């Protein structure tokens, strides 16, 4: 009897035994937690502790200081270099160098002998140099200050892109090149076809230079580049020529498929062309059909794994293509039937299901996506049809003519079609459980 009295309710048992009960965590868990805490605190802002924010701020400060120091250190040397070949050209024509330096021939229609004035350092002074000098004589010195525009000014009159700034009697350099135009990235092989030069300097018009007699150069960005070749002979005399390279832009191919077309809602797909910089297009739909339209529409007969490729061409014939693989699969479409359900014992529910009846699993119905129509029939084991519906939103509530069917196995059969027209034929069994 005494033992009986010590029996208690389930709730009390759990409450008494577990409320406030302690479990020793063990030292390894303590260690693991402490390192995790440290790690977490490191990534959290807290002014009182060393953490990531301090580290970042310190790194930024060091970086800023570094940039400041380096930019100061560079200042002295940067101006003469700057990837600009012109100062070298100037040194070539300095009067101190060869005796012939007193005259410069500028290749335009008037060949004017001029007095040489020392090349000023800044561009502003270059422009003012083309006026009257201190002795009142007309000076006409053209010193290319920027490799791109200064020679072009000279060339303007003759319309010839090649200009030469050279010593009297010196042959003009000859440039041989593999390409004068093409799509970016454009690779051009330049060759100095002159034999007399002792030193070579190429300037490619985008800041790049080379001192090789044969130079391979890649233009990454579209544009017109003036490539300049400066040759110096053994006596230090200089001659310059330049030519133009056209690097054409490449279009960017891109397309989009409307979201409900991806699941082949009606088999038809409208492709949206999002390409940039192109004038004509070639579509490959992945099913051996192609199109040259801008925004084509295509019909697929069945689900599959199609690779769609769009190639976009610019007016110069530069092309870019993009492929999207494995499109229009049946991944977004499914139909599934449960294998058991528990009808409401209180009476027929009518078969229309909702989230609430689903929680209790009271109605047998398909869960589907991408189905356009479905006929569901359910038979008892002895072959009698107990339910039929053409409506996907209506399932079987487990009743036949108002009577709850006996628990057990029932056979179902579904016939219908997917939204793209493909047929669905399925069958299976379901257990009717007793509530």
């Amino acid at each position: 009897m005494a033992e009986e009295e010590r029996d208690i309710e389930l709730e009390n048992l759990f409450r008494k035994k577990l409320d406030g009960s302690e479990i020793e965590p063990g030292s390894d868990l303590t260690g693991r937690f402490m390192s995790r805490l440290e790690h977490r605190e490191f990534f959290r802002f807290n002014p009182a502790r060393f953490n990531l924010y301090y580290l970042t701020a310190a790194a930024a400060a060091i970086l800023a200081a570094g940039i400041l120091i380096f930019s100061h250190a560079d200042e002295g040397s940067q101006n003469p270099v700057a990837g600009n070949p012109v100062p070298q050209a100037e040194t070539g024509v300095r009067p101190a160098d060869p005796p012939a330096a007193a005259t410069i021939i500028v290749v335009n229609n008037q060949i004017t002998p001029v007095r040489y004035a020392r090349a000023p350092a800044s561009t502003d002074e270059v422009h003012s140099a083309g006026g009257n000098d201190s002795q009142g004589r007309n000076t006409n010195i053209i010193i290319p200050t920027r490799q791109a525009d200064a020679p072009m000014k000279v060339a303007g009159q003759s319309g010839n892109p090649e200009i030469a700034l050279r010593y009297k009697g010196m042959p003009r350099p000859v440039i041989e090149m593999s390409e004068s135009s093409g799509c970016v990235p454009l690779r051009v092989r330049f060759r100095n076809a002159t034999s007399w030069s002792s030193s070579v300097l190429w300037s490619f018009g985008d800041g790049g230079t080379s001192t090789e007699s044969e130079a391979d150069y890649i233009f990454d960005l579209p544009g017109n580049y003036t490539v300049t070749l400066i040759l110096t002979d053994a006596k230090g005399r200089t001659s310059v020529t330049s030519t133009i390279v056209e690097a054409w832009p490449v279009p960017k191919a891109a397309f989009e498929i409307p979201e409900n077309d991806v699941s082949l809602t009606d088999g038809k797909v409208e492709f949206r062309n999002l390409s940039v910089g192109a004038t004509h297009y070639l579509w490959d739909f992945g099913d051996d059909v192609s199109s040259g339209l801008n925004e084509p529409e295509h019909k697929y007969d069945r689900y599959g794994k199609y690779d769609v490729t769009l190639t976009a061409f610019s007016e110069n014939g530069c092309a870019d293509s993009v492929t999207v693989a494995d499109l229009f699969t049946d991944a977004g479409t499914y139909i599934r039937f449960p294998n058991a359900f528990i009808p409401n014992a209180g009476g027929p529910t009518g078969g229309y299901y909702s989230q609430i009846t689903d929680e209790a699993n009271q109605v047998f119905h398909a869960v589907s996506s991408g189905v356009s129509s479905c006929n569901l029939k359910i038979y008892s084991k002895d072959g009698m049809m107990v339910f039929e519906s053409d409506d996907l939103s209506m399932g079987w509530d487990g009743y036949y003519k108002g009577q709850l069917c006996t628990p057990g196995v029932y056979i179902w059969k579904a016939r219908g079609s997917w939204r793209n027209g493909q047929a669905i034929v399925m069958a299976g069994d379901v257990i009717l459980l007793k509530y």
Partner: protein
Amino acid sequence: MSEQQIIDGCIRHSRKAQQLLWKQYSGFLLGVCSRYASDRPEAEDMLQEAFLKIFFNLKDYAGTGSFKGWLRKVTVNTAITYYHKNLRYKHNIDIDEYMTTETGTRGFEEDFYTAEDLYRVLGELSPGYRTVFNLYTVEGYKHHEIAEMLNIDLNTSKSQYSRARAVLRKKLEELGKIKKNYT
């Protein structure tokens, strides 16, 4: 150090105070976590999450009410967060669990079952049942509060509770038979 000193130390993120707090309460809170977890590793994970929350939110502890109670509340909330994370398994209930109906109303012999036994049977329960049972029985929340916390229907809370109770009873009775055979 007094409790208030430890709390102040933790707010300053003093490592020593944090260690003292852990030492003092980790056993108690691991006990709480074990009720909500299906096994020891999960409980330890929950405990670590709970302590991180405690350490980072300690300044929000108003000082009213018992500190232990506050710690426990934070831990239970962590367990509920865990439950939500595993929400996709919420409806996965063992068919045996679902079909069990309560048999008998006999009481239980208090000294016969150890705390470990109870932790084990709780651990075998599905997360939904376990959480509802714990919140109702041990934490003492009302069904409508539980429904709100877990974002479920009021009736779901009630039915899960009564099913959990039935399953626990069955498991405890089975365990009792085995234990009696061994002793």
